């Protein structure tokens, strides 16, 4: 019981790191980016390549995965995405679906369609008994790392100069520009950090979530649920939504394997019926 709860929390934390970039771009900036999972996949494949071909240790791969995805995000933001901010949601949907298709078949072409595995270092494998729970060491590692990231993000958004600039730029880009805030740069940096975090999540998650070229499609619904259920007013909502989703998914698949896969969708529908704008959302 407690073990499942713990696994669910680890899974949820992972989802949060994967989706928090989207919580900002889609939730705060109201930009529909269905290609978010592609950045996570980029981070995952960067890790696989670095470890397999470069022999780089796992821990050093994590910042590298962040950087690869962040640079990719920055380049795409500057060249393509920034033209899309003011477009209709339909345009944004089509554009990002196009990117997903390109990412999926480009990755298949470059890396093959099979599932990739990474070999965790020995000190991260195995389980220990703690407080009466069987705790996987790697999952504990994920919980600690992602928990720190979540706290850092929340503080960054609410207590730093950059965070307040971002919130100002999101609330009213014109006024923010008038006050001398470099809105374009703020958005670009935000996008890059969000993509980078997705890349980090992809690197951390390839062990638990699996990594293959269909990754962006498989997890698209999870990302959308995290953002829509969490509401669009910050990162606390998406964080709690991620935990809820992670626990529901793991517990559902464990206790009722026959219908386990539906639990996620049922949670989604239940939340939506009760709170149409998400758990912590406000109508806009």
């Amino acid at each position, binding site marked *: 019981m407690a073990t499942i709860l713990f696994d669910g929390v680890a899974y949820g934390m992972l989802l949060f790191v994967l989706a928090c970039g989207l919580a900002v771009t*889609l939730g705060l900036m109201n930009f*529909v980016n269905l290609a978010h999972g592609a950045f996570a996949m980029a981070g995952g494949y960067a890790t696989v390549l670095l470890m397999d071909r470069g022999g780089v240790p796992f821990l050093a791969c994590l910042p590298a995965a962040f950087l690869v995805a962040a640079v990719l995000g920055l380049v795409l933001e500057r060249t393509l995405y920034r033209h899309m901010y003011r477009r209709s949601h339909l*345009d944004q949907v*089509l554009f990002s679906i*196009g990117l997903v298709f390109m990412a*999926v078949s480009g990755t*298949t072409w470059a890396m093959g369609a099979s599932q990739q595995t990474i070999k965790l270092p020995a000190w991260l494998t195995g389980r220990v008994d703690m407080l009466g729970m069987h705790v996987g060491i790697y999952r504990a590692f994920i919980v600690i790392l992602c928990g720190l990231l979540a706290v850092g993000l929340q503080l960054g958004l609410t207590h730093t100069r950059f965070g307040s600039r971002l919130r100002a730029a999101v609330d009213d880009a014109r006024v923010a520009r008038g006050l001398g805030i470099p809105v374009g740069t703020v958005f670009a940096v935000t996008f890059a950090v969000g993509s980078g975090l997705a890349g980090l999540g992809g690197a951390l998650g390839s062990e638990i979530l699996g990594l293959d070229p269909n990754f962006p499609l498989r997890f698209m619904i999870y990302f959308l649920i995290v953002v*829509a259920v969490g509401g669009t007013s910050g990162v606390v909502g998406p964080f709690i939504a991620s935990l809820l989703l992670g626990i529901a998914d793991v517990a559902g698949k464990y206790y009722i394997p026959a219908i386990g896969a539906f639990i996620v969708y049922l949670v989604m529908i239940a939340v*939506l019926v009760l709170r149409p704008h998400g758990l912590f959302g406000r109508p806009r």
Partner: protein
Amino acid sequence: MWVGQALARRARWRWAEIVFWLAAFAALFLPAGRHLILNEIAILALFALSLDLILGYAGIISLGHAAFLGLGAYAAGLLAKHVTDDPTVGLALATVAAASLGFATSFLVLRGSDLTRLMVTLGVAMLLGELANALPDLTGGADGLQGVTMGPLLGLFEFDLYGRVAYAYSLTTLFVLMLVARAVVYSPFGLSLMAIRRNRLRASALGVPVHKRLIAVYTLAAAFAGAAGALLAQTTAFVSLDFFEFHRSADVLLVLIIGGAGWLYGGILGAVLYEALQDALAAVTPEYWQFWIGLFLVAFVMLGRERLTGGMRGLLARFGR
């Protein structure tokens, strides 16, 4: 009075339309060999027409329109396998089944913002896919529903190997449903849908019952998609989990967008262009055509899809006046 006249003028049959349908039916008498692909185009066009009703006219973006296609296909396939092999009964059942699902899920789609709609539509399609996968005894699971055999159409015409009867069947269904769609969008009901798309708040201030209208059109669109699914299942004699997949929903979006959303022939034009595009791409890179589809989508949106399809539509309108 004035509204009635304006609507009557909009609803008038244009020359280009009449010529198009005559040509489409005349294609039945082409020498054998092209009808299978024509059948595919007709079904895809019907599927896109159904999406057009909610996207082009009511402004609802759906990432899971394949849910209704798949449900219709399974309904028709299962009926043919277990009860009766009469195609028209299957078509009717699939339409009703998909319409019921559309009605039931429309209440979820009405809620929240564009974001929640994207999530719900995608979620419903994936939920049905999981369901079909979890019931292998009924649906055949990952192997697909096999052993679907169809009886003769109307008890007279056997489905032939070259797809001539299949094309006639699909085209007639498309034509009849196009008549329904025409009647719907050129009615005060259709006008109120367009008002809702442009400005939902203002439409409701004018006294349009927004929720009821959206529920009605979502149900209707679902019924159309279910019919498309039934045609697909019956004319190919196969249904698989692939029918619920995301790429189906994305493809039909693409089809509608390249043909132009918001006018009735967008789906048909899009289906023709899409098949041609797919044919050309498959000849060059059969394995990675999805990459080129993606690139096409990105380029299409970046260049301004409204400018592109608007230009094409203007040309057609001038031509067909």
